[in-house]
């Protein structure tokens, strides 16, 4: 049933529009949002693999040069898309569930933003058309800004405006790179561009082609929050509501991998491409973790850790072998789940204490033992402790960099994992284990049940992926074999 492929984008998009139009009717909106949110992870599971050509324009074979042309916007749906759309759909469901149970009167525009973001990342993953991807990338940026600005945290408007201003530098540069590619090849379809590059129709050493890589790469840095955009990315995580931040980081991870896979298909023949990705990934790892160590606001700390973990994904893709790319994509999946778990868990603490400064917290283990234990396991998974899922992907990355002949990168990856662990243990100690400060009021404040439910679901995924990584890695490895 390939008709389901466009529905993955259309359902959240239509739901977003309908909810914002009919948000006056509170109960109907709630029920409708809940039903659509349940559908989101189910549609990709039911759909068959295949292509969808919008408008029905099938690819044309040019018999003179024996090349295929894709006149339509093409959506391709494979195992990789299935697993990531399923993951982000599940996360959207959990976030919307938390939101609906938290407030009696829901805000239509906020639900609109959540669904719009999900639709945008789904389209970015599915599409085979680089301009289509850019359009949804811009829509995603607007949705992210909206989610940040809608939160009630201090200075969220300032952070949203900073993100937009930086975005208006980053995304036109990406568009300029796409314009260069369009000028060189006359097409915006990634398969066509890649075929033109590989068949020698485009001079891969020409400065224009190299400059298009530089510009799209800069846009990718903005999309994924690698340096120099790591401060703003961690900033918007810390200024969003906790469940919103959990969704925002999944948007970041998915836009990162969808853009980098497109770049990989076009530019993989250039050695400089891999050097650039590895350089910025290492920078992200070092800066992210070392800045996370010095934070006192624990939301900001998780934000910097999330940026540092993004470096692992980039590292896997930058090394450029089948095994390393599989490891990087598996790490991406793990990061979506684990970081969401941490954001929701620490968000539950904010909910119960109204405090974000680690120096004013303490002794929470006695009051919120369930949250404490689930957060501990999540933190261990992020640091890469066996048998959790973070361990499997990080082990694969270390092996991949060893077999590529870069033992330094392996050592660095292990060191970053250890430093991540230090960050987590330090924060965990100051929040949960150290004696409770006298002026901290804790009586009568409960953690919402929906948050504990969401954490439980994510925790089960973390443990299952840690014990049975082959379920995912085999499929991803097949996909990577197809694009190499």
């Amino acid at each position: 049933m390939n008709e389901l492929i466009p529905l993955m984008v259309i359902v959240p998009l239509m739901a977003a529009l309908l909810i914002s139009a009919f948000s006056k009717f509170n109960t109907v909106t709630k029920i409708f949002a809940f039903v659509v949110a349940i559908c989101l992870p189910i549609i990709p599971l039911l759909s068959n693999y295949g292509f969808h050509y919008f408008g029905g324009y099938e690819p044309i074979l040019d018999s003179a040069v024996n090349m295929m042309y894709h006149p339509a916007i093409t959506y391709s749906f494979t195992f990789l898309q299935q697993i990531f759309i399923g993951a982000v759909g599940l996360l959207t469901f959990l976030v919307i569930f938390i939101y609906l149970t938290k407030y009696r009167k829901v805000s239509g525009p906020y639900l609109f933003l959540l669904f719009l973001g999900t639709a945008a990342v789904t389209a970015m993953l599915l599409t085979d058309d680089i301009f289509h991807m850019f359009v949804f990338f811009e829509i995603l940026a607007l949705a992210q800004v909206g989610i940040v600005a809608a939160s009630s945290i201090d200075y969220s408007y300032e952070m949203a405006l900073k993100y937009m201003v930086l975005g208006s530098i980053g995304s036109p540069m990406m568009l300029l790179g796409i314009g260069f590619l369009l000028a060189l090849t006359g097409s915006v379809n990634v398969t066509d561009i890649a075929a033109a590059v590989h068949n020698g129709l485009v001079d891969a050493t020409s400065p224009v082609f190299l400059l298009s890589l530089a510009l799209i790469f800069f846009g990718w840095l903005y999309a994924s929050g690698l340096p120099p955009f790591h401060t703003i990315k961690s900033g918007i995580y810390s200024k969003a509501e906790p469940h919103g931040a959990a969704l925002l980081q999944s948007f970041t991870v998915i836009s990162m991998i969808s853009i980098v896979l497109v770049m990989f298909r076009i530019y993989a023949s250039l050695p400089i491409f891999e050097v650039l990705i590895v350089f910025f990934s290492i920078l992200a790892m070092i800066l992210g973790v070392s800045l996370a160590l010095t934070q006192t606001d624990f939301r900001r700390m998780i934000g910097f850790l999330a940026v540092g973990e993004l470096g692992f994904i980039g590292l896997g893709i930058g090394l450029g072998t089948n095994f390393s790319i599989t490891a990087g994509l598996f790490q991406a999946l793990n990061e979506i789940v684990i970081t969401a778990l941490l954001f929701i868990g620490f968000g539950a603490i904010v909910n119960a204490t109204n405090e974000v400064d680690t120096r004013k917290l303490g002794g929470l283990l006695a009051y919120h033992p369930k949250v404490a234990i689930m957060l501990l396991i999540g933190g261990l998974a992020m640091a890469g402790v066996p048998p959790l899922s973070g361990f499997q992907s990080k082990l694969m990355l270390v092996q991949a960099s060893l077999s590529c002949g870069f033992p330094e990168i392996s050592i660095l990856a292990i060191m970053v994992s250890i430093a991540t662990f230090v960050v987590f243990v330090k924060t965990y100690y100051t929040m949960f284990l150290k004696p409770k400060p006298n002026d901290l009021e804790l009586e009568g404040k409960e953690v919402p049940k929906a948050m504990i439910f969401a954490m439980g679901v994510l925790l089960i995924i973390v443990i299952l992926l840690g014990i049975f990584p082959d379920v995912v890695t085999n499929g991803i490895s097949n996909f990577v074999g197809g694009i190499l």
Partner: protein
Amino acid sequence: MKLYDQIFNVVKQFRKLFSPGPVTNADVSGSLTAEIFLIVSLVLTAILLRHVNVLLAGIFTLVLAIVLIYSIPLIPKFKIEQEDSLEKMLFYAIITLALIGIFMYWGGNLV
């Protein structure tokens, strides 16, 4: 003893990092860890230059290590450059864009 005094001064300087507010022992040890992590990881990354030239890598790594160790505390300097003001973010973004562009246009084929 000179290095010990220097590290002791570093710990004193961390107070400014956490102002306003008190400085706890967990924060200071975290910052010290960050300091050591930063030095070690940057030196380790410099070793990657050996894929370009072994002699260059050796000299560069040694010089970097000495410069970094003698310029502790690094973390306050790092943190000031990566604060949340739009001025600094825009400046670094545009500098990075310029560097990537120049590097790719003239040096993209050298690797």
